[in-house]
């Protein structure tokens, strides 16, 4: 497929969904304060574009920084769990437990310890999104063909060499699955982080808009948010393609014999 045709189905579905939405809203006279139509949303968003964009910047920043923190932390934790049975038994349950607590409930404690810095925000984002990375990386490190590892051991490879040369590259596809989930969550994490001591960002803006019943603008902010989410996901997918070259093209022409398809 040519690059631009790739986006046709997605765009077509969007247009169809938009039309249906607009039609329902118009035909059933749904008032815009309950569910604004896409036209309404687009108009409001355009009117408030500078407000939206100004506030999108800090949110994206926090999301990306938080994701990077989560990536580093998630992979390191996974390696530690993988390398040491004791660490696994001691830490893994606590890591799982950390995900069952609503992060916002921890906000006061973080605030008390760290004050009104960027720290608590990054921690909130990282807490929300490191988990898929850790679980996937642990499973990926374990999924590497055991015969490959035997081969390396027989050649006298050090434990860390096996990790670096066999297990980590082998776990990359899993890691990236986790990273794609994580980066999508980082956006919502950034939003939540703004409930804790912020006076800017899309999360703060959304609270304000909701309080003033600016439903159209609220939906505009949400649309912007989803656009950021999709863009970050796409960025990680691109990184995956670049970092796993041996994986690429493996599937080329698998279900068809016409060369160049997919």
């Amino acid at each position, binding site marked *: 497929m040519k690059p631009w045709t790739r986006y046709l189905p997605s765009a077509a579905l969007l247009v169809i969904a938009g039309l249906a939405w607009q039609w329902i809203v118009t035909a059933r006279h749904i008032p815009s304060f309950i569910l604004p139509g896409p036209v309404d949303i687009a108009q409001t968003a355009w009117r408030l574009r500078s407000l939206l964009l100004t506030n999108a910047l800090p949110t994206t920043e926090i999301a990306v920084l938080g994701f990077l923190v989560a990536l580093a932390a998630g992979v390191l934790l996974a390696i530690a769990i993988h390398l040491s049975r004791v660490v696994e038994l001691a830490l893994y349950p606590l890591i799982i437990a950390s995900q069952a607590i609503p992060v916002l409930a921890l906000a006061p404690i973080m605030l008390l310890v760290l004050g009104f810095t960027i720290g608590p925000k990054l921690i909130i984002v990282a807490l929300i999104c490191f988990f898929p990375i850790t679980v996937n990386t642990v499973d990926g490190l374990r999924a590497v*063909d055991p*015969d*490959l590892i*035997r*081969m*390396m*051991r*027989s*050649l*006298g*490879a050090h434990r860390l*060499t096996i990790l670096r*040369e*066999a297990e980590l*590259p*082998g776990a*990359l596809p899993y890691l990236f699955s986790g990273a794609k989930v994580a980066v999508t969550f980082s956006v919502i994490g950034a939003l939540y982080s703004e409930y804790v001591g912020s006076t800017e960002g899309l999360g703060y803006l959304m609270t304000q808009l909701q309080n003033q019943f600016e439903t159209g603008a609220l939906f505009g902010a949400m649309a912007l948010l989803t656009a950021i989410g999709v863009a970050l996901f796409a960025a990680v997918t691109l990184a995956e393609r670049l970092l*796993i*070259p*041996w994986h690429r093209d*493996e599937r080329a022409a698998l279900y068809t014999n016409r060369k160049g398809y997919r």
Partner: protein
Amino acid sequence: MKGIEAREISRTFRVDGHALPVLCGVSVAAPPGGFVAVLGPSGSGKSTLLSIMAGLDRPDAGRVVVDGRDVTGRLGLAGYMPQRDLLLPWRRTLDNVALGPELSGMSRADARRLAASHFPRFGLAGFERAYPRTLSGGMRQRAALLRTFLSEREILLLDEPLGALDAMTRMDLQSWLLDVWEEMRKTIVLVTHDVDEAIYLADRIYLLSSRPARVSAVLDVDLRRPRPYDEIVTSTRFLSLKREILGLLGHRPVVTT
């Protein structure tokens, strides 16, 4: 130089809940600088024996001895080439071969240089930067053999290293193997299913019975060295040895005379 010995090795697996005795008191000894071949039916336990000698698996009974020291379960003493080629999918062919010397402590650059210098002889020239999945079966096997050989161990354990090669390529690499062995005096244990190959290369041949494997015969190959291929394989001693082995393996005596 080091020799390697497997002493009275026994190993039983569990398959689907039942005990499957695979090795039953098998002893194989390769003296320092010796070239030993192991022949046996498919599924008898040759690979199991070799992985025990490599330290990758532990025997239920018996010991592996190198230079008189018990090294059962010790790894990295011998260069081991497994039956599956096991190239790393994420390393290009040259880097896969360079892994051997790298893991022996050579710098990556030196390892790559060393590996590259052997590529033409191994018919791999031009495929240095190809990923393993684009290689043919025989090319993968050759890359794996080269990797093991370059790991620079004094002892090499080779599990059917030439099994996927055609007659020509195979003879070529057999001669190469003999050359480097004579030159660098490595200790080699070779698992093979090719009787000619065993006789042509080895000083001594161990025959394994079918599962559970015992050593059914040990033959010394009293052919002179060096061994020019054409002369050796036409010699009467070669042919009588071949007949003897095929007979021991249960084959009717139909060797061409």
